[in-house]
């Protein structure tokens, strides 16, 4: 089942972790303290992180280790933040990035 892995044969049972609240596209969602933004979003089934400049196509996690920048989103007002290597913080504002999030970049 997609989402958080509760039981794992090697990693064991998922321990309850301190929760933080983050805001994704205006909606409040719960995340585990210190986890990567991409993981918090994926746990809620969110895997579209941004839309490209030229073709306005969706992108999400590709390399998962901060090398490819496809997972980049606007975080606390700053664009191009690599969400797979950036931990969540209480009250963090995360928005889908359109192009470089400049005027005229919106998909509609």
């Amino acid at each position, binding site marked *: 089942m997609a989402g958080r892995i509760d039981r794992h044969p090697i990693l064991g049972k998922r321990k309850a972790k301190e929760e933080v609240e983050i805001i994704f596209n205006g909606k409040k969602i719960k995340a585990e303290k210190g986890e990567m933004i991409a993981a918090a979003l994926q*746990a809620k089934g969110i895997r579209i992180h941004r839309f490209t400049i030229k073709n306005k196509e969706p992108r999400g996690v590709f390399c998962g280790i901060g090398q490819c920048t496809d997972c980049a989103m606007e975080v606390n007002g700053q664009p191009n933040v690599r969400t797979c290597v950036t931990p969540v913080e209480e009250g963090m504002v995360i928005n889908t990035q359109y192009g470089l999030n400049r005027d005229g970049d919106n998909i509609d």
Partner: protein
Amino acid sequence: MVIILIKMEMVVIGAGPAGLSSAIEAAKEGVEVLLVDENLKAGGQLFKQIHKFFGSSDHRAGVRGIDIGKELINESRKLGVNIWLNSIAIGIFDDKNILIKQNKNGRESLKRVQADKIIIATGASEKVINFTNWTLPGVMGAGAAQTMINVHRVLPGDRFLMVGTGNVGLIVSYQLIQAGAKVVGLIDAAEEVGGYGVHAAKIARKGVPFYLNHTIIKADGNNKDGVTGAVIAEVDDNWQPISGTEKELKVDVITLAAGLKPLSELANMAGCKRTYISELGGWVPLHNENMESTVSGVYVVGDVTGVEEANTALEEGRLAGIDAAEKLGRIAAKESNNKKKNITKRVKNLRLGPFGENRLKAKEKLIKEYYELTDKDCREKYDPVKAMEHQSGEKIKRISVDHIDKTQGPVAVIECNQEIPCNPCELACKFGAIEIGEPITNIPILNEEKCTGCGLCLPQCPGLAIFLIDKSYSSDKSTVAFPYEYKHIPKKGDIVDAVDRQGNYLCKAEVVKVLQLEKFDKTPIVTISVLDKYIDDARNIKMSD
């Protein structure tokens, strides 16, 4: 802007198994070490490896990667290794200066670290294959899926297609099943599974299908959901998809396990020479048996020198750490050699069997190329054969004067093969033996029947590209005449070194004639005699000091 300068005996870039073990070995001998890693945690890829390692007890076989990682980090801390995490070495400059973007307590600043020894342990990154719609969210590297499930404990989908059956593809498929996913299948264009049989057997006995001789045609999906399916097809002997064999698979994640390639940007910036060896992942920096690169004092260890496993990375790291400590005067050569000998023996044991043999041969080839390059003083050489080939478009093995007969007498040879606007040679020849015509960019053609061997064209060529060859000089010797516009002109009778088109020594030569005429306009023509076998290559001289 002021960048703080820090001096360090040794800087290790990359805190994976190779970097950690080199830092540990050096720190054991008292070397001051700075270990830098761009990630938030040290350990490199070890933290994704929840499976038990292969190898021998020396390599902690049977222990899970995550546990090995923890042990190494603890050991390095105890030995006093300085560790900067979340810090990126953004470049290596002259004199082993490294610019590091340090992140300390959330504050970023640039630090310049001047190191005596640098160990580059930057690892490898995933190769990709592309196909229609591969940019849809849900298509990711196998390593990305592995990070998600083993490090972040989040499963990025329900139904997975794994592309590639090397060890990464097999291991991650197994770990996906452990995490609760359904692996709908593994595909590989090859006809055999690429990784270890035992890894494949684990998933096969879970009922997971293997589609060998198959490739992925496209991902299906849309802008709202990302990947919703995949189309695969069988391939023929030329790796081309066979129409009519398409199969649609319902998946929401497609993981690519197409192999790994070294992340050698810093090594390349530091000037380390590299070579292409496909068994090691592609372009790899050269190194010797002590893991030192072609730049003295810069070592390369682990996956960046060839994609292998954590056990070889650990050993290579140890070799470099010990050698660097020896060169820094912290350990006697005898003790160092003993330690290195034991490690080298252990490494050889890891490179056995059908999988290891290829890597062993590849590493031997790499070390051989290292010595071939460094013995030549590491100079970049102009290769005239390649230049001629490139210009003429033909494949040339060597430039020769085979077409000249031993009894022929002197004849001109024009080594000018590019279309440049120039025709003094045509005008210089009184006998009309050189033809260029119009346009003057035409390549000069020498008509040997008209050439009298007078040599008047030699001083007239602005490119100094005409030589006069006389094979009839003696029964075993030939002469070559060439323009020589330098300060010290040899005299008739001098014995000099004859060199080839790259300045390499060929043989001793006698100067048989030196012509300095006013009409030559300060271009002396020197004629030397060499044994017949050198006449193809002797085109210049080096005078003894």
